[in-house]
């Protein structure tokens, strides 16, 4: 591995201390004191048409400044998905609409001088609904007589199979080779199907935004968003405002995981502040975060895998159905990832097929969520691989090693499937998956522990494994930029669009710049994600930050170094090529000048100009990070309860720019994925109401959930990445469902084919098996 001074070395989070010490750094802390408080009247029906809405009593209430309904807001369809242009999600949402499509959907928004009055005003709004029959099961939603989006004015930016009259938000089909023919030739074929739930992001900071008009009468919105530039663009289009009149500022964000890629209250605070001239603020309650923002797409996925007797996998056939809920945010793109970031793991197949539909239902809308389809696909594929191994009488680790992706290899899927559109062919310049598989097996003690050991009268210990891949941004789509200025005093001001949502992008971009300019992180002052002051970046999604924004920062720092040498050469009256710069001093023969002196001269004596550079980066490939994961579990055969004793992850994400933060991404992802696999049960009642709408009922992992995490990184270098890095934000979340499912099977011989894997399901399956 190359030797670095700052990159790949321990560096503390550049904001961690201030955050922990309680400074005013999050969106809510920037709210203008005395702001109008926004509260939302939400639909009590899963599907209804507003026949009559009377807000006069609410408006008459002392202290109420504004009430918004579908009658007085622009009727322009948009997508809240928070994606680039053209948007790969159906344009199927109105700011407020005559129809409400899930329990918790927006009916009317009240702005009042305080929370109490706003709440009181909500009760005074009289609504008469025509209650419609909801569609609550995505498996029967297709061509249902109950059409969720019958309205005019909704559209798709390009052909994505959007057929609202059939309740279809998007659909997709692809095939490489002839799957049926290959399967017919296989010695062994297994079939498997499983279902995943609508996981909640449960980021700790609720969706929050606030607005004010500034000294130029421009609209300034602080928002806990992952995509400030997309919010600005989509807001301008939807509200019919010039882009120049909107500024979006993203302060520190208390977690996102995809849930803040999308619009939340921004349109409402914008409208209220524009109409009243007063500052306004909207903070989701925890119940609203659960029941009125977004979830992961629940899916039903079926797989057929065919192999030769020797364990060569010949064909994979994958079909999926996805539930996008009431609106189609990320419907197509998440769906495609089920195939495109899962199936290439087994790249030696002769044929592969993937397809299916994304259906509308009257559930809480689904949207972007870390893993983004890959976790759903991984659960089913990696369970099926274990089933295949059993049928072949092979060790599942060996089967994976034999068939999985290796360095310098490729998969035809990369070229066929992109993010909503065609993909990009690429060779794996860095892929240490074989090492990850071996090393993980060693760390967990696979040889000794597989498949199980009886450790007590009714206690069994077992191990399970899975492998995974993700991506690093969207090629030819995601763009990041960075601007660096040299300041007098000899330090650097870095402005970038990269959006730190807690994953640490400000820290790692500071490290990249410091490394290239041979300085320390304290000499690099970073300011990010403010549409007025930072250059463009798509935002934090699709594992793009380290790779795309990191590359942009690296390119900019290289340019800055060149500029500095040229400035020093002029000042010292020597040739550029004769200059040696060590980060502090420019030397050429016996002449020298320090960076400190150079920076001061540049500003105060001659030539008196500001040295500033800006660069952008757009990916041409999306090098996948890879990982192998193993868990050891102990299962109580009397109760079905289980405990994870250790979860081993060995990850190839190229160079880890910040090893501790990279580890944090993996371990945080594992734990969140494990929540989905084990405790995060989602329950709707028969009317379509989400019952698991509080931390009381929706159980996220605590510090006691996983006993131990063992996380290592493979020695790997991605030639196209900044200092050899790939992204690492999502990959951690992908494996836990499959790993747990496989470990439980290895322990007690039952395979749980729906998430979460609860003791109750395990015990029930064991009883059924005994009964047979």
């Amino acid at each position, binding site marked *: 591995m190359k030797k670095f001074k700052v990159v790949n070395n*321990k560096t*503390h*989070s550049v*904001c*961690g*201390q201030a*955050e*922990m*010490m*309680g*400074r*005013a*750094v*999050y969106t*809510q*802390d920037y709210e203008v004191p005395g702001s109008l408080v926004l509260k939302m009247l939400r639909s009590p029906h899963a599907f209804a048409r507003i026949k009559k809405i009377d807000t006069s009593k609410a408006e008459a209430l002392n202290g109420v400044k504004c009430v918004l309904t579908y009658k007085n807001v622009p009727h322009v369809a948009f997508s809240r998905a928070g994606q680039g242009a053209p948007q790969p999600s159906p344009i199927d949402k109105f700011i407020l609409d005559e129809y409400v499509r899930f329990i918790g959907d927006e009916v009317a928004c009240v702005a009042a001088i305080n929370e109490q009055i706003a709440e009181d005003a909500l009760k005074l709004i009289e609504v008469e609904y025509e209650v419609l029959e909801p569609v609550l099961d995505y498996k029967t939603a297709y061509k249902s007589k109950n059409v969720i989006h019958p309205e005019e004015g909704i559209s798709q930016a390009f052909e994505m199979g959007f057929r609202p009259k059939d309740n279809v938000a998007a659909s997709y089909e692809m095939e490489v080779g002839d799957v049926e023919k290959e399967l017919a030739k296989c010695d062994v074929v297994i079939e498997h199907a499983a279902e995943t739930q609508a996981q909640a*992001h*449960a*980021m*700790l*900071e*609720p969706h929050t935004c606030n607005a004010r008009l500034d000294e130029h009468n421009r609209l300034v919105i602080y928002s806990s968003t992952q995509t400030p530039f997309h919010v600005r663009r989509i807001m301008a289009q939807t509200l019919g405002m010039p882009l120049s009149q909107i500024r979006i500022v993203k302060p*520190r*964000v*208390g*977690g996102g*995981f995809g849930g803040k890629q999308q619009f939340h209250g921004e349109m409402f605070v914008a409208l209220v502040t524009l109409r009243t001239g007063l500052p306004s603020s909207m903070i989701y*309650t*925890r119940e609203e975060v659960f029941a009125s923002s977004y979830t992961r797409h629940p899916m039903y996925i079926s797989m057929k895998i065919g192999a030769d007797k020797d364990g060569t996998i010949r064909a994979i056939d994958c079909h999926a159905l996805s539930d996008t809920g009431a609106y189609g945010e990320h419907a197509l793109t998440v769906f495609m990832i089920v195939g495109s970031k899962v199936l290439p793991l087994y790249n030696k197949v002769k044929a592969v097929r993937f397809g299916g539909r994304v259906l509308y239902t009257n559930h809480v809308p689904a949207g972007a969520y870390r893993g983004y389809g890959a976790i759903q696909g991984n659960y089913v594929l990696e369970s099926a691989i274990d089933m295949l191994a059993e049928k072949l009488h092979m060790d599942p680790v060996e089967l994976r090693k034999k068939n999985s992706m290796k360095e310098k290899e490729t998969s035809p899927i990369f070229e066929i499937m992109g993010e909503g559109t065609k993909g990009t062919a690429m060779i794996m310049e860095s892929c240490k998956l074989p090492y990850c598989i071996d090393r993980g097996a060693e760390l967990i003690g696979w040889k000794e522990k597989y498949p199980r050991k009886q450790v007590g009268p009714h206690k069994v210990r077992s191990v399970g494994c899975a492998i995974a891949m993700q991506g690093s941004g969207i090629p030819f789509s995601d763009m990041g930029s960075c601007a660096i200025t040299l300041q007098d005093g000899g330090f650097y001001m870095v402005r970038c669009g990269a959006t730190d*949502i*807690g*994953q*640490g992008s400000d820290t790692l971009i500071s490290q990249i710049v410091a490394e290239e300019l041979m300085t320390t992180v304290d000499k690099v002052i970073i300011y990010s994600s403010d549409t007025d002051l930072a250059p463009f970046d798509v935002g934090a999604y699709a594992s793009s930050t380290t790779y795309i924004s990191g590359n942009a920062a690296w390119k900019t720092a290289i340019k800055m170094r060149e500029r500095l040498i040229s400035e020093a050469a002029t000042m010292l009256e020597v040739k550029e090529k004769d200059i040696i710069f060590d980060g502090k001093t420019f030397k050429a023969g016996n002449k020298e000048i320090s960076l400190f002196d150079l920076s001061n001269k540049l500003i105060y004596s001659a030539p008196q100009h500001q040295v500033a550079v800006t660069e952008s980066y757009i990916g041409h490939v999306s090098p996948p990070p890879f990982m192998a994961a193993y868990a050891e579990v102990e299962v109580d055969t009397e109760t079905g309860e289980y405990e994870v004793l250790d979860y081993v992850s060995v990850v190839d994400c190229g160079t880890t720019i*910040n*090893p*501790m*933060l990279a*580890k*944090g991404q993996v*371990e*945080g*992802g*594992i*734990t*969140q994925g494990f929540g989905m696999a084990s405790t995060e049960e989602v329950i709707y009642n028969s009317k379509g109401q989400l019952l698991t709408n*509080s*931390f*009381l009922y929706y159980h*996220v*992992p*605590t*510090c*006691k*959930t*996983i006993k*131990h*995490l063992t996380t290592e990184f493979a020695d790997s270098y991605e030639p196209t990445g900044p200092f050899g890095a790939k992204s690492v934000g999502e990959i951690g979340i992908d494996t836990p469902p499959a790993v747990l499912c496989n470990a439980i099977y290895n322990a007690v011989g039952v395979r749980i084919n729906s998430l979460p894997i609860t003791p109750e399901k395990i015990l029930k399956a064991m009883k059924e098996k005994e009964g047979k």
Partner: protein
Amino acid sequence: MKLQFFLNGTDVVWDVRPDEYLSNALRRHGIFSIRVGCDESICGSCTVLVDEKPVLSCSVLAITVNGKHVTTVEGIQEEVARLSHFFGEEGANQCSYCGSGMAIIIHALKKEYKNPTDEQIRDFMVGNICRCTGYHSQFKAIKAYLAEGK
């Protein structure tokens, strides 16, 4: 209503509504370390000390602390700076929204035990949700912090 109490050692008198929760009253007076994660007494991010005992400030009415001592992260800045150093070492602060609540809990843990066992540390941490880190790095940071100077 008039509320008199000791905020981080200073005698203060505030005007609060009878139905106002302590979290709200504190934030309204610029105590930003109170991060309200759930407002339903579960996540722990709004934890303060009332007479040295950890309390979820979103779960008690402001008026109930009348005459009492309330400690927030603003009152133990040096200690939190030190703790955050260990968090930095382990990469245990990601979004840090859980951070000040966690800092208060660790303060209380330190008061309660001289040499807490792993289980005792976890028993204190368990009420504080962190959705980012997976807890492992936080746990290691806390252990290192507690071990300092021993």
